[in-house]
């Protein structure tokens, strides 16, 4: 399976996402924001970073970059699309996911190993987890506070569209401790924490067993590869 990772100007975790796909056993393909071409990939990842310097609003400019018209088309046709951190912000700005992301309530950038719960496993990006599984993956953002109006929030909760929820510590003031969302179809998922930083022993979060051995994020990438095999 070929999974594309889009590099926007200011993308930072694109190389990490490419590595995560390879470690999960997929073919990783670099995509360029300025192309109107998905190069025949089967799934797409919008990586973390500060696309276009996050000027205007996080993800707002990237949501209008050339390749996004193809991404939106493909997503609406059911192609798996994952947005991580800045990628999540881009998906929200592109109206593929609901709500908005604002400056952390405490006002500063925060990097921590974050415990989250997988709230929904009926998506192509979370099927490899068990319902309610608690995982720890890195979080690092300055503008990760999830917001939505009451009605939207009620719909997200009611329709089971919350994909991940913060546990123990809400690191940025997100409403309902929401860490990530899915769309109704289950092919589009976005989250603020970084599964691609918890895929390789020795370079992930510390665990009680061993330093930097956390690989709780790997199942995100394995999920989409497994979904492709099934389909």
């Amino acid at each position, binding site marked *: 399976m070929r999974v594309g990772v889009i590099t926007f*100007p200011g993308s930072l975790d694109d190389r990490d996402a490419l590595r995560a796909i390879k470690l999960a056993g997929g073919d990783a393909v670099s995509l360029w924001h300025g192309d109107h071409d998905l190069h025949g990939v089967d799934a797409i990842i919008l990586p973390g970073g500060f696309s276009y*310097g996050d000027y205007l609003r996080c993800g707002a400019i990237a949501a209008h970059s050339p390749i996004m018209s193809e991404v939106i088309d493909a997503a609406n046709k059911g192609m798996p699309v994952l947005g991580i951190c800045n990628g999540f912000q881009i998906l929200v700005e592109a109206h593929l996911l609901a709500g908005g992301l604002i400056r952390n309530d*405490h006002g500063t*950038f925060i*990097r921590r190993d974050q415990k989250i719960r997988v709230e929904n496993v009926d998506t192509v990006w979370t099927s490899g987890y068990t319902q309610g599984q608690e995982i720890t993956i890195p979080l690092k953002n*300055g503008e990760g506070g999830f917001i939505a109006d009451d009605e939207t929030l009620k719909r997200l909760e009611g329709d089971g569209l919350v994909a991940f929820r913060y546990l123990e510590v809400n690191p940025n003031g997100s409403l309902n401790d929401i860490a990530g969302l899915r769309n109704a179809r289950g092919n589009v998922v976005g989250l603020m924490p970084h599964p691609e930083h918890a895929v390789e022993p020795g370079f992930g979060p510390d665990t009680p067993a061993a330093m930097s051995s956390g690989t709780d994020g790997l199942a995100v990438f394995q999920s989409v590869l497994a979904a492709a095999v099934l389909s």
Partner: protein
Amino acid sequence: MTELIPDTVENATATPAKDQPYDLLGLKPDEYQQIRDILGRRPTSGELAMYSVMWSEHCSYKSSKVHLRQFGEKVTEAMTKNLMVGMGENAGVVDIGEGWAVTFKIESHNHPSYIEPFQGAATGIGGIVRDIISMGARPVAVMDALRFGAIDHPDTSRVVNGVVGGISFYGNCLGLPNIGGETWFDPVYQANPLVNALAVGALRHEDLHLANAKGVGNLVVLFGARTGGDGIGGASILASDTFAEGGPTKRPAVQVGDPFAEKVLIECCLELFAGDCVEGIQDLGAAGISCATSELASNGDGGMFITLDNVLLRDPTLTAEEILMSESQERMMAIVRPEMIDAFLAVTTKWDVEASVLGEVTDTGRLIIEWKGQTIVDVDPRTVAIDGPVYDRPMEYPTWLDALQADSPAKFARATDGDELKKQFLTVLGSPNEADTDWITNQYDYYVMGNTALHTPDGAGMIRIDEVSGLGVALATDANGRYCQLDPYIGAQLALVESYRNVASSGATPLAVSDCLNFGSPENPEVMWQFARAVEGLADGCLELGIPVTGGNVSFYNQTGDVPIHPTPVVAVMGSIDNVARRLPSGWQDDGENLYLLGVTADELGGSAWAGSVHDHLGGIPPRVDFTAEKDLAGLLGAAAHEGIVTCAVDLGTGGFIRAVADGVLRFGVGARVWIDEIVSRDGVDATAALFSETQARALVSVAREDDVKFRGLCDGRHVPVLRVGVTDKRSGELEVQGLFSIEIDQMRSVHRGTLPAHFGPVVGG
């Protein structure tokens, strides 16, 4: 808009008596006369601008050069055999094997960070990262060594929040992991914080690039951000003068950074290198275009012709002098073969980076700059960039030093009972300089790039360079201004061995040094003496350890009013490790492992954390340095890591043995039972010294029981003194110092973690 009339060479020749504001630009009368003698006429205003910034202390090293030569002289062949590029280029380059090379450098951005802490610190990161790109390397990590005023001073929070916010903002947006550094608080830095930023980059041997303009007819291209009015005169006026009370605000001389522009510039440069589009390259930092053109020309074929009108401007009203002096960030200058210019511009266009051809390389031996059709600069570039003034400034042994050294902490009564020692332990553990810095470091991303093998709070940062073989590098920075105040020669060596030991404790082999020498005014003979002694100590120390200084930076004029900072030579040591999987963290994670103390303990508390935090005292003499013992210890740690027979190593530094034990416990929250009886009996010291002495060449390691015999054998074979001093304990949830005191890990943690948040605000999830 009034018409800007350039001061041409013709005009300068015709009007020799014209009054020129050389003093406002930071030049002394004799320096101005020297420029007139070189040119045989008065300089044009453009030339004066160039000379003034390039002859500033910051750019010319005019007061330090005569001392820094030692770094080049006190070397052996063995020390330079892995050195691909030494001092004098943008950054040193070291061969680490497997076709890989590493370039690293530490640099100061002190004065801007006091005036405008956020932008000052941010552009400090930006500047050092561009030095790394200039060598042809991909930047792979940053670190920072910070010094602030007293933690409880009302202004400290402003500076801390600004500096940390600036580093966080810029470094995180660049996508570079911040893997370590250090933070100290001391009133001597109150109105003069130190912000020293380190960057490290990796490159294949064949990708090495240098800053020279060779090949007559090759094009000179300026690319990156547009040139604006920010940072004008930053080098000459800011970095080379002290903050006079009541003087005009210097805010306009601080540059403003745009990390997005720099991130794009990094990727753009790497693609240019890969496409072989670049012959020579230089970043624009201090002194902007003046520096880049004169240095590139000096290091190449010697001549260059530039049309200044071709510089893309953010502000069209800038004068020629301002364009020459502007320190606008995120700019680079490249030398490009004419046949490659289309390929070059295709890459810059792809990255939406603006570029303009300013001129070409010549063999005239002159740097000629035209503006509006007239020649405004016609100089020998070497007189600007290389052959500036050199001062052998007067030095004086400080009048106060003998009294300070005589005031030994031996005068303080020593505690004998456990309760008192426990109280002192907690005082040290929670003191601002020993406290947990996670309030700072959890604003930094250390995950990005996916190659970070060690990071804060481990004693060294470590990055994997080769994803297949696991080859990596470790880095640590250290400086102890308190030791240096007591003895700058020994103090500089102590910074070196501490940093060396930190790298060795990670399992890596120390290879090279970069230094950032922060001192007061060189015009103060006592400061100059401190500087000379520190450089001598560092050069002698590097020779003893067999690792070369590859580059660095000098920052003078760090003082407020007449009071200089403590001499603060920050020493960064870089080492390599065959496979980062063999790295050693600064703490134990498993139950029932033996804890061993390597090295011997003497009663050395002068300048110690114990003296400072328990007795508010600075006096006496700092710990002795024993290079042979350091080398033996480093060799042992490297071998033990390689063979996988130790599970962690914590180097002993400030706070001594008990501080290292606390580090080991707090790293993973696993307790320990330790005893000091044998340290006391073998080394003839009391409990206070056993716990708090800062004797060098020591480390604490944990060893799984099955590796005990092998480990003892290794120590014997390498003649490193060893004592079993404890066992790890996963169940107790406490640290027990046998016969003296016990303390719960949670209480230790809250003391250790509470200090910074109490002054600067809560830690998220804290």
